[in-house]
């Protein structure tokens, strides 16, 4: 492990990679701070740029953007009560009341330290868990991979944020359907191309990610065209108070940080659960553990209530990298986008990544840790200045984001057909979002669809076209049973809840 860490450090310590790390953290914080824009949008926006880079540098930048955007989201939650994404919602419960008391700086410092501890613990646990999981996954063959991907997709639907399991499953199926567009690799038959040459190679992942997240989000905010709030104007003046923590603060939140880190990591590793569930769970755990006066403070500016979700969502972000790097299965919307980027860069995530491209694996791990350090050392003192961007009027910001999306897709292919396709898809995605359909399962279905089909066909080829491997191979059967369990779980939970209310 130490040898791996040294390899990672050596890989990262190039001026270009270090520069990208700092730039990614700052850019991520900036994008994440914009109300409505979260890590998924930040990462999607940068994909066209990273596709021009070497794989290791691209991953360093994406990891930095991911962490930066999470930190930026917390900043907007604390300063203006506008969480960039769902995992930052619990941060507003106590962060915003603290800011209103004039302790915005202290709240932001608690967030930054929480994120740092969460990220550090998650990185250590990732280093411990990933090699073991990768070694086990090396025994997997095509049938096991197919079953694993089925499990990933069903678990994501079952643990979906909004609770709409049927909607999430429908979006997964839509993603799988979109993945079948293009020329079939095995038989050379064109599927659902309607004779259009531009989609003979299938839909581009960048295009779908932009349409589903960045562009539909930008259209939505352009349609709302909200005026800047008084809080945003105040925050933009850089009036956040002291950024220092007292000894009492540290004593109060240290146990919370450790508990939330471990909980967040475990929840993050589970496919589909992700940062939002981790943040809400750790907030609930801390409130239940608190007694008397401390418990009453929750919701009114409790330091523990602020630190717990902040630590947990960062630890979950680290945890989500475990299945991504070792199994090639993304655990969240953001990691699905990162997986797509990896595949586009020609890197196949999975257990072989750890054995065959260990330098890249360790570079990513070390960059995650250093990214958290940079957030604490560079971003935190810069917050009063970065917060000034909150005052950029919506009428300037929305066209800029729309422009970045259009340019991003155009620069990948220099084909105006792709622009039309993205606009069409974004309008469909916008409609689906307004009807409360989650976008992450769509992208997961799309990314995993191709891999799933590939593995299923390979398994069928080896087994002479027989489906018996689904129940004859123990690991495959176990994984498929778990998938079935994931589908049944929401139904069982609903029945139990109904019985309780009766």
């Amino acid at each position: 492990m130490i040898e791996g860490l040294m390899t990672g450090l050596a890989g990262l310590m190039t001026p270009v990679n270090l520069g990208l790390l700092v730039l990614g953290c700052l850019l991520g914080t900036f994008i994440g701070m914009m109300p409505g824009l979260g890590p998924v949008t930040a990462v999607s926006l940068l994909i066209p740029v990273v596709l021009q880079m070497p794989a290791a540098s691209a991953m360093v930048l994406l990891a930095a953007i991911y962490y930066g955007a999470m930190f930026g989201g917390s900043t907007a939650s604390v300063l203006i009560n506008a969480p960039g994404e769902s995992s930052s919602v619990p941060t507003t419960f106590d962060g915003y009341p603290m800011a209103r008391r004039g302790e915005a700086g202290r709240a932001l410092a608690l967030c930054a330290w929480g994120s740092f501890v969460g990220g550090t613990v998650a990185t250590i646990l990732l280093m411990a868990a990933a090699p073991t999981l990768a070694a086990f996954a090396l025994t997997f063959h095509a049938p096991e991979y197919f079953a694993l991907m089925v499990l990933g997709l069903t678990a994501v639907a079952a643990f979906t944020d909004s609770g709409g399991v049927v909607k999430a499953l429908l979006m997964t199926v839509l993603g799988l359907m979109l993945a079948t567009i293009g020329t079939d690799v095995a038989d050379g038959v064109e599927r659902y191309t309607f004779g259009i040459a531009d989609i003979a190679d299938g839909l581009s992942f960048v295009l779908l990610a932009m349409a589903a997240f960045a562009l539909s989000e930008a259209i939505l905010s352009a349609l709302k065209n909200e005026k800047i709030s008084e809080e945003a104007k105040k925050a933009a003046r850089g009036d956040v108070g002291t950024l220092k923590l007292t000894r009492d603060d540290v004593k109060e939140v240290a146990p919370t940080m450790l508990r939330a880190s471990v909980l967040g990591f475990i929840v993050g590793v589970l496919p589909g659960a992700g940062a939002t569930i981790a943040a809400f769970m750790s907030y609930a755990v801390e409130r239940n553990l608190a007694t008397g006066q401390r418990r009453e403070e929750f919701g009114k500016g409790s330091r523990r209530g602020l630190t717990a979700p902040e630590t947990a969502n960062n630890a979950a972000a680290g945890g989500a990298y475990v299945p991504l790097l070792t199994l090639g299965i993304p655990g969240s919307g953001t990691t699905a986008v990162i997986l797509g980027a990896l595949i586009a860069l020609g890197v196949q995530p999975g257990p072989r990544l750890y054995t065959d491209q260990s330098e890249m694996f360790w570079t990513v791990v070390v960059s995650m840790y250093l990214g958290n350090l940079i957030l604490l050392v560079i971003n935190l003192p810069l917050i009063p200045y970065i917060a000034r961007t909150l005052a950029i009027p919506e009428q300037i910001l929305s066209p800029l984001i729309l422009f970045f999306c259009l340019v991003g897709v155009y620069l990948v292919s220099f084909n105006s057909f792709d622009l039309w396709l993205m606009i069409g898809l974004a309008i469909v995605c916008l409609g689906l979002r307004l009807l409360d359909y989650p976008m992450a399962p769509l992208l997961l279905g799309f990314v995993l669809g191709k891999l799933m089909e590939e593995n299923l066909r390979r398994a069928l080829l080896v087994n002479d076209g027989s489906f018996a491997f689904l129940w004859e191979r123990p690991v495959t059967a176990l994984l498929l049973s778990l998938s079935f369990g994931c589908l049944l779980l929401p139904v069982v939970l609903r029945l139990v809840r109904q019985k309780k209310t009766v």
Partner: protein
Amino acid sequence: MGLFALAINPLGFVVTSALFLIGGFLVLGERRPLVLACVGIGVAVGFWIMFTLLDVQLDWGIFGRALS
């Protein structure tokens, strides 16, 4: 956005981008001429410079052909 897709081939990257941005700002209610011109043209030209430095040749459309 549709107009951007229509205009990018004939008008080229820089002109289309500047027009798209200025149009977008106007539609959403920005009326200060200096802001419209500086941000719109500034971002479009800034992107062109950045990509030219990265060795990515962006098309100038009819303007490029007229100049050459």
